[in-house]
Protein backbone atom coordinates (compact mmCIF):
# COMPACT_ATOMS: atom_id res chain seq x y z
CA UNK A 1 0.00 0.00 0.00
CA UNK A 2 1.20 3.46 -0.83
CA UNK A 3 1.55 5.92 2.06
CA UNK A 4 -1.70 7.30 3.50
CA UNK A 5 -0.99 10.87 2.40
CA UNK A 6 -0.58 9.82 -1.24
CA UNK A 7 -3.77 7.77 -1.05
CA UNK A 8 -5.65 10.65 0.55
CA UNK A 9 -4.60 13.05 -2.19
CA UNK A 10 -5.49 10.49 -4.88
CA UNK A 11 -8.92 10.01 -3.32
CA UNK A 12 -9.46 13.75 -3.12
CA UNK A 13 -8.50 14.25 -6.77
CA UNK A 14 -10.81 11.37 -7.77
CA UNK A 15 -13.68 12.94 -5.85
CA UNK A 16 -13.25 16.30 -7.59
CA UNK A 17 -12.63 14.65 -10.98
CA UNK A 18 -15.80 12.52 -10.71
CA UNK A 19 -17.79 15.53 -9.51
CA UNK A 20 -16.68 17.63 -12.48
CA UNK A 21 -17.32 14.85 -15.00
CA UNK A 22 -20.91 14.52 -13.76
CA UNK A 23 -21.55 18.28 -13.71
CA UNK A 24 -20.13 18.45 -17.20
CA UNK A 25 -22.54 15.77 -18.47
CA UNK A 26 -19.60 13.56 -19.43
CA UNK A 27 -20.87 10.62 -17.39
CA UNK A 28 -23.66 10.27 -19.94
CA UNK A 29 -23.79 7.84 -22.87
CA UNK A 30 -25.60 10.43 -25.01
CA UNK A 31 -22.93 13.08 -24.49
CA UNK A 32 -20.09 10.81 -25.59
CA UNK A 33 -21.93 9.23 -28.52
CA UNK A 34 -23.35 12.66 -29.40
CA UNK A 35 -19.80 13.97 -29.79
CA UNK A 36 -18.85 11.20 -32.19
CA UNK A 37 -22.04 11.94 -34.18
CA UNK A 38 -21.12 15.69 -34.21
CA UNK A 39 -24.40 16.46 -32.49
CA UNK A 40 -23.17 17.48 -29.04
CA UNK A 41 -19.76 19.12 -28.74
CA UNK A 42 -19.57 19.05 -24.92
CA UNK A 43 -16.70 16.58 -24.87
CA UNK A 44 -14.53 18.50 -27.31
CA UNK A 45 -15.24 21.85 -25.63
CA UNK A 46 -14.34 20.43 -22.24
CA UNK A 47 -11.17 18.68 -23.39
CA UNK A 48 -9.79 21.57 -25.41
CA UNK A 49 -10.47 24.04 -22.59
CA UNK A 50 -8.80 21.72 -20.06
CA UNK A 51 -5.75 21.33 -22.32
CA UNK A 52 -5.35 25.07 -22.82
CA UNK A 53 -5.86 26.04 -19.18
CA UNK A 54 -3.93 23.07 -17.80
CA UNK A 55 -1.09 23.27 -20.30
CA UNK A 56 -0.51 27.01 -20.09
CA UNK A 57 -0.55 26.85 -16.29
CA UNK A 58 1.90 23.97 -16.03
CA UNK A 59 4.32 25.34 -18.63
CA UNK A 60 4.07 28.80 -17.00
CA UNK A 61 4.91 27.38 -13.57
CA UNK A 62 7.96 25.71 -15.09
CA UNK A 63 8.96 28.88 -16.93
CA UNK A 64 8.64 30.77 -13.64
CA UNK A 65 11.18 28.44 -12.07
CA UNK A 66 8.80 26.22 -10.08
CA UNK A 67 9.90 22.65 -9.51
CA UNK A 68 7.15 21.02 -11.58
CA UNK A 69 8.09 17.91 -13.56
CA UNK A 70 6.40 16.88 -16.79
CA UNK A 71 4.95 13.37 -17.11
CA UNK A 72 5.35 12.59 -20.79
CA UNK A 73 4.25 9.17 -22.04
CA UNK A 74 6.41 7.41 -24.61
CA UNK A 75 5.66 7.81 -28.28
CA UNK A 76 5.40 4.53 -30.16
CA UNK A 77 3.58 5.65 -33.28
CA UNK A 78 2.05 2.30 -34.24
CA UNK A 79 1.04 1.44 -30.67
CA UNK A 80 -0.39 4.91 -30.01
CA UNK A 81 -2.37 4.96 -33.27
CA UNK A 82 -3.60 1.33 -33.37
CA UNK A 83 -4.35 1.49 -29.64
CA UNK A 84 -6.19 4.78 -30.18
CA UNK A 85 -8.24 3.29 -33.03
CA UNK A 86 -9.27 0.23 -30.97
CA UNK A 87 -10.01 2.54 -28.07
CA UNK A 88 -12.21 4.78 -30.23
CA UNK A 89 -14.28 1.83 -31.50
CA UNK A 90 -14.80 0.60 -27.94
CA UNK A 91 -15.56 4.06 -26.59
CA UNK A 92 -18.19 4.79 -29.25
CA UNK A 93 -19.95 1.46 -28.59
CA UNK A 94 -19.74 1.71 -24.81
CA UNK A 95 -20.55 5.42 -24.66
CA UNK A 96 -17.92 6.05 -22.00
CA UNK A 97 -14.16 6.21 -21.68
CA UNK A 98 -12.51 4.51 -18.69
CA UNK A 99 -12.72 7.51 -16.34
CA UNK A 100 -16.23 8.58 -17.31
CA UNK A 101 -17.42 4.95 -17.31
CA UNK A 102 -16.31 4.41 -13.72
CA UNK A 103 -17.75 7.80 -12.72
CA UNK A 104 -21.04 6.91 -14.49
CA UNK A 105 -21.60 4.16 -11.90
CA UNK A 106 -22.24 6.94 -9.38
CA UNK A 107 -24.49 8.80 -11.81
CA UNK A 108 -26.92 5.87 -12.06
CA UNK A 109 -25.82 4.17 -15.26
CA UNK A 110 -26.47 0.43 -14.94
CA UNK A 111 -24.96 -0.70 -18.22
CA UNK A 112 -21.71 1.05 -17.25
CA UNK A 113 -21.21 -1.85 -14.79
CA UNK A 114 -20.96 -4.24 -17.75
CA UNK A 115 -18.55 -1.78 -19.35
CA UNK A 116 -16.31 -1.61 -16.28
CA UNK A 117 -16.26 -5.42 -15.96
CA UNK A 118 -15.31 -5.53 -19.63
CA UNK A 119 -12.50 -3.06 -18.97
CA UNK A 120 -11.06 -5.41 -16.33
CA UNK A 121 -11.39 -8.26 -18.84
CA UNK A 122 -9.62 -6.20 -21.48
CA UNK A 123 -6.74 -5.49 -19.09
CA UNK A 124 -6.42 -9.22 -18.35
CA UNK A 125 -6.38 -10.07 -22.05
CA UNK A 126 -3.80 -7.38 -22.77
CA UNK A 127 -1.51 -8.71 -20.04
CA UNK A 128 -1.47 -12.06 -21.89
CA UNK A 129 -0.97 -10.43 -25.29
CA UNK A 130 1.73 -8.03 -24.05
CA UNK A 131 4.83 -10.06 -25.05
CA UNK A 132 3.55 -10.32 -28.62
CA UNK A 133 2.44 -6.69 -28.80
CA UNK A 134 5.75 -5.53 -27.38
CA UNK A 135 7.81 -7.64 -29.79
CA UNK A 136 5.80 -6.82 -32.92
CA UNK A 137 4.17 -3.43 -32.44
CA UNK A 138 5.62 -1.22 -29.75
CA UNK A 139 9.03 -0.89 -31.36
CA UNK A 140 7.65 0.69 -34.52
CA UNK A 141 7.99 4.47 -34.55
CA UNK A 142 9.34 4.48 -31.00
CA UNK A 143 10.75 7.92 -30.25
CA UNK A 144 10.62 7.90 -26.46
CA UNK A 145 9.17 10.66 -24.30
CA UNK A 146 8.89 13.39 -26.92
CA UNK A 147 6.76 16.53 -26.99
CA UNK A 148 5.58 18.58 -29.96
CA UNK A 149 7.72 21.62 -29.01
CA UNK A 150 10.71 19.36 -28.29
CA UNK A 151 10.56 17.50 -31.58
CA UNK A 152 9.79 20.49 -33.81
CA UNK A 153 11.91 23.14 -32.11
CA UNK A 154 8.89 25.46 -32.04
CA UNK A 155 8.17 27.05 -28.66
CA UNK A 156 5.27 25.63 -26.63
CA UNK A 157 3.74 29.10 -26.45
CA UNK A 158 3.11 29.09 -30.19
CA UNK A 159 1.29 25.78 -29.85
CA UNK A 160 -0.89 27.16 -27.08
CA UNK A 161 -1.52 30.38 -29.04
CA UNK A 162 -2.64 28.39 -32.09
CA UNK A 163 -4.76 26.07 -29.95
CA UNK A 164 -6.37 29.03 -28.20
CA UNK A 165 -7.05 30.88 -31.45
CA UNK A 166 -8.50 27.72 -33.04
CA UNK A 167 -10.68 27.13 -29.97
CA UNK A 168 -12.02 30.71 -29.85
CA UNK A 169 -12.77 30.81 -33.58
CA UNK A 170 -14.02 27.22 -33.75
CA UNK A 171 -16.29 27.40 -30.71
CA UNK A 172 -17.75 30.78 -31.75
CA UNK A 173 -18.57 29.36 -35.17
CA UNK A 174 -20.03 26.30 -33.47
CA UNK A 175 -22.23 28.47 -31.26
CA UNK A 176 -23.80 30.29 -34.17
CA UNK A 177 -24.28 26.93 -35.89
CA UNK A 178 -25.95 25.51 -32.77
CA UNK A 179 -28.21 28.59 -32.49
CA UNK A 180 -29.32 28.24 -36.07
CA UNK A 181 -30.07 24.58 -35.54
CA UNK A 182 -32.11 25.32 -32.43
CA UNK A 183 -34.31 27.83 -34.25
CA UNK A 184 -35.23 26.19 -37.52
CA UNK A 185 -36.85 28.62 -39.93
CA UNK A 186 -40.33 27.72 -41.19
CA UNK A 187 -40.28 26.04 -44.60
Amino acid at each position, binding site marked *: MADPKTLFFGALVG*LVFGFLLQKGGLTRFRTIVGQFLFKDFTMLKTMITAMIVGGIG*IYAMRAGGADVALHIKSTAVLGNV*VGGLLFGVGMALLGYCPGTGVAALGDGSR*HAWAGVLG*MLGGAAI*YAEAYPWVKANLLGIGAYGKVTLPGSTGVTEWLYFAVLLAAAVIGFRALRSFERRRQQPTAP
Partner: protein
Amino acid sequence: MSIFAKARWSPYVVGALLGVLSWVTFATMDKALGTSTTMVRAVGVAERAVAPEHVAGNAYFTKYLGTEDKPKPWFEWQFALVLMLPVGAFIAAKLGKSQIRESVPDLWREKFGPSKAKRWAVAFGAGALMIFGARMAGGCTSGHGLSGGLQLAVSGWLFTGALFAAGAATAWAAYGRKGANHG
Protein backbone atom coordinates in the same frame (compact mmCIF):
# COMPACT_ATOMS: atom_id res chain seq x y z
CA MET B 1 -29.74 28.81 -6.42
CA SER B 2 -26.41 27.40 -5.35
CA ILE B 3 -24.01 26.59 -8.11
CA PHE B 4 -23.76 23.04 -6.72
CA ALA B 5 -27.51 22.55 -7.15
CA LYS B 6 -27.26 23.30 -10.84
CA ALA B 7 -27.62 20.04 -12.75
CA ARG B 8 -25.24 20.97 -15.53
CA TRP B 9 -22.22 23.26 -15.71
CA SER B 10 -20.83 24.91 -18.82
CA PRO B 11 -18.26 22.72 -20.61
CA TYR B 12 -15.86 25.67 -20.56
CA VAL B 13 -16.14 25.98 -16.77
CA VAL B 14 -15.72 22.21 -16.29
CA GLY B 15 -12.81 22.17 -18.74
CA ALA B 16 -11.08 25.09 -17.01
CA LEU B 17 -11.53 23.43 -13.60
CA LEU B 18 -10.09 20.16 -14.94
CA GLY B 19 -7.13 22.21 -16.15
CA VAL B 20 -6.72 23.71 -12.68
CA LEU B 21 -7.02 20.22 -11.16
CA SER B 22 -4.08 19.24 -13.37
CA TRP B 23 -2.04 22.18 -12.02
CA VAL B 24 -2.66 20.89 -8.52
CA THR B 25 -1.74 17.26 -9.27
CA PHE B 26 1.41 18.24 -11.20
CA ALA B 27 2.61 20.90 -8.75
CA THR B 28 1.74 19.38 -5.38
CA MET B 29 1.59 15.61 -6.01
CA ASP B 30 4.00 15.15 -8.92
CA LYS B 31 1.26 13.20 -10.73
CA ALA B 32 -0.71 13.42 -13.96
CA LEU B 33 -4.40 12.51 -14.14
CA GLY B 34 -4.94 9.00 -15.48
CA THR B 35 -7.23 6.03 -14.94
CA SER B 36 -6.58 3.00 -17.13
CA THR B 37 -3.47 1.62 -15.39
CA THR B 38 -5.71 0.96 -12.41
CA MET B 39 -7.62 -1.64 -14.45
CA VAL B 40 -4.34 -3.56 -14.86
CA ARG B 41 -3.54 -3.36 -11.15
CA ALA B 42 -7.08 -4.36 -10.14
CA VAL B 43 -7.30 -7.38 -12.40
CA GLY B 44 -3.69 -8.32 -11.63
CA VAL B 45 -4.40 -8.41 -7.90
CA ALA B 46 -7.58 -10.41 -8.48
CA GLU B 47 -5.73 -12.93 -10.66
CA ARG B 48 -2.90 -13.11 -8.15
CA ALA B 49 -5.33 -14.29 -5.48
CA VAL B 50 -6.27 -17.27 -7.67
CA ALA B 51 -3.10 -17.94 -9.67
CA PRO B 52 -0.11 -16.25 -7.99
CA GLU B 53 2.48 -18.03 -10.15
CA HIS B 54 0.81 -17.01 -13.36
CA VAL B 55 0.81 -13.34 -12.36
CA ALA B 56 4.41 -13.52 -11.10
CA GLY B 57 5.43 -14.89 -14.50
CA ASN B 58 3.56 -12.28 -16.54
CA ALA B 59 5.78 -9.43 -17.71
CA TYR B 60 2.91 -6.93 -17.90
CA PHE B 61 1.62 -7.57 -14.40
CA THR B 62 5.11 -7.49 -12.89
CA LYS B 63 5.70 -4.17 -14.62
CA TYR B 64 2.97 -2.64 -12.45
CA LEU B 65 2.78 -4.95 -9.44
CA GLY B 66 6.47 -5.69 -9.12
CA THR B 67 8.01 -9.08 -8.40
CA GLU B 68 7.81 -11.26 -5.29
CA ASP B 69 11.14 -9.88 -4.07
CA LYS B 70 10.31 -6.32 -4.98
CA PRO B 71 6.54 -5.86 -4.85
CA LYS B 72 5.04 -2.52 -5.82
CA PRO B 73 1.94 -1.31 -3.99
CA TRP B 74 -1.21 -1.91 -6.06
CA PHE B 75 -3.28 0.37 -3.87
CA GLU B 76 -1.67 3.66 -4.82
CA TRP B 77 -2.56 7.21 -5.88
CA GLN B 78 -4.39 6.42 -9.11
CA PHE B 79 -6.23 3.45 -7.59
CA ALA B 80 -7.62 5.70 -4.86
CA LEU B 81 -8.51 8.25 -7.53
CA VAL B 82 -10.47 5.72 -9.60
CA LEU B 83 -12.32 4.37 -6.55
CA MET B 84 -13.53 7.87 -5.72
CA LEU B 85 -14.72 8.78 -9.24
CA PRO B 86 -18.21 7.30 -8.73
CA VAL B 87 -18.44 8.92 -5.30
CA GLY B 88 -17.71 12.35 -6.76
CA ALA B 89 -20.20 11.77 -9.56
CA PHE B 90 -22.80 10.54 -7.05
CA ILE B 91 -22.45 13.68 -4.92
CA ALA B 92 -22.68 15.90 -8.01
CA ALA B 93 -25.78 14.03 -9.21
CA LYS B 94 -27.48 14.21 -5.80
CA LEU B 95 -26.76 17.92 -5.33
CA GLY B 96 -28.01 18.63 -8.84
CA LYS B 97 -30.95 16.20 -8.51
CA SER B 98 -29.92 14.87 -11.89
CA GLN B 99 -29.22 11.20 -11.24
CA ILE B 100 -30.48 8.81 -13.90
CA ARG B 101 -31.42 5.11 -14.01
CA GLU B 102 -30.17 3.89 -17.33
CA SER B 103 -29.96 0.21 -18.23
CA VAL B 104 -30.38 0.68 -21.97
CA PRO B 105 -29.71 4.17 -23.41
CA ASP B 106 -32.53 5.70 -25.51
CA LEU B 107 -30.46 6.03 -28.66
CA TRP B 108 -29.34 2.40 -28.38
CA ARG B 109 -32.91 1.21 -27.76
CA GLU B 110 -34.17 3.01 -30.85
CA LYS B 111 -31.61 1.31 -33.04
CA PHE B 112 -30.97 -2.07 -31.41
CA GLY B 113 -34.05 -2.74 -29.32
CA PRO B 114 -34.83 -2.88 -25.58
CA SER B 115 -32.88 -6.08 -24.75
CA LYS B 116 -30.78 -5.54 -21.65
CA ALA B 117 -28.72 -8.67 -22.33
CA LYS B 118 -27.76 -7.41 -25.77
CA ARG B 119 -26.81 -3.95 -24.53
CA TRP B 120 -24.84 -5.29 -21.59
CA ALA B 121 -23.00 -7.85 -23.72
CA VAL B 122 -21.92 -5.16 -26.17
CA ALA B 123 -20.98 -2.83 -23.29
CA PHE B 124 -18.78 -5.61 -21.85
CA GLY B 125 -17.07 -6.30 -25.17
CA ALA B 126 -16.65 -2.60 -25.91
CA GLY B 127 -15.12 -1.98 -22.48
CA ALA B 128 -12.67 -4.84 -23.07
CA LEU B 129 -11.67 -3.58 -26.52
CA MET B 130 -11.27 -0.06 -25.16
CA ILE B 131 -8.88 -1.03 -22.36
CA PHE B 132 -6.96 -3.36 -24.68
CA GLY B 133 -6.43 -0.34 -26.94
CA ALA B 134 -5.62 1.95 -24.02
CA ARG B 135 -2.92 -0.38 -22.74
CA MET B 136 -1.46 -0.86 -26.21
CA ALA B 137 -1.31 2.91 -26.60
CA GLY B 138 -0.06 3.44 -23.04
CA GLY B 139 -2.98 5.50 -21.75
CA CYS B 140 -6.60 6.52 -22.12
CA THR B 141 -8.64 9.68 -22.53
CA SER B 142 -7.36 11.06 -19.23
CA GLY B 143 -3.72 9.92 -19.37
CA HIS B 144 -3.10 10.46 -23.07
CA GLY B 145 -5.96 12.78 -24.02
CA LEU B 146 -6.07 15.22 -21.14
CA SER B 147 -2.66 14.94 -19.46
CA GLY B 148 -0.77 14.11 -22.66
CA GLY B 149 -2.64 16.72 -24.67
CA LEU B 150 -1.99 19.55 -22.24
CA GLN B 151 1.72 18.69 -22.04
CA LEU B 152 1.82 18.70 -25.85
CA ALA B 153 3.07 15.11 -25.82
CA VAL B 154 3.34 13.59 -29.30
CA SER B 155 1.89 10.29 -27.99
CA GLY B 156 -1.16 12.05 -26.53
CA TRP B 157 -2.03 13.88 -29.74
CA LEU B 158 -1.54 10.75 -31.89
CA PHE B 159 -3.78 8.75 -29.57
CA THR B 160 -6.48 11.42 -29.35
CA GLY B 161 -6.58 11.90 -33.13
CA ALA B 162 -6.90 8.15 -33.69
CA LEU B 163 -9.60 7.77 -31.05
CA PHE B 164 -11.71 10.57 -32.50
CA ALA B 165 -11.43 9.20 -36.04
CA ALA B 166 -12.34 5.64 -35.02
CA GLY B 167 -15.02 6.79 -32.57
CA ALA B 168 -16.75 8.94 -35.18
CA ALA B 169 -16.57 6.20 -37.84
CA THR B 170 -17.98 3.65 -35.39
CA ALA B 171 -20.78 5.90 -34.13
CA TRP B 172 -21.88 6.80 -37.67
CA ALA B 173 -21.76 3.12 -38.70
CA ALA B 174 -23.82 2.15 -35.66
CA TYR B 175 -26.37 4.98 -35.56
CA GLY B 176 -26.10 6.86 -38.85
CA ARG B 177 -27.82 10.11 -39.70
CA LYS B 178 -30.94 9.09 -37.83
CA GLY B 179 -28.85 8.82 -34.68
CA ALA B 180 -27.41 12.27 -35.19
CA ASN B 181 -30.94 13.70 -35.44
CA HIS B 182 -32.12 11.75 -32.40
CA GLY B 183 -33.68 14.09 -29.80
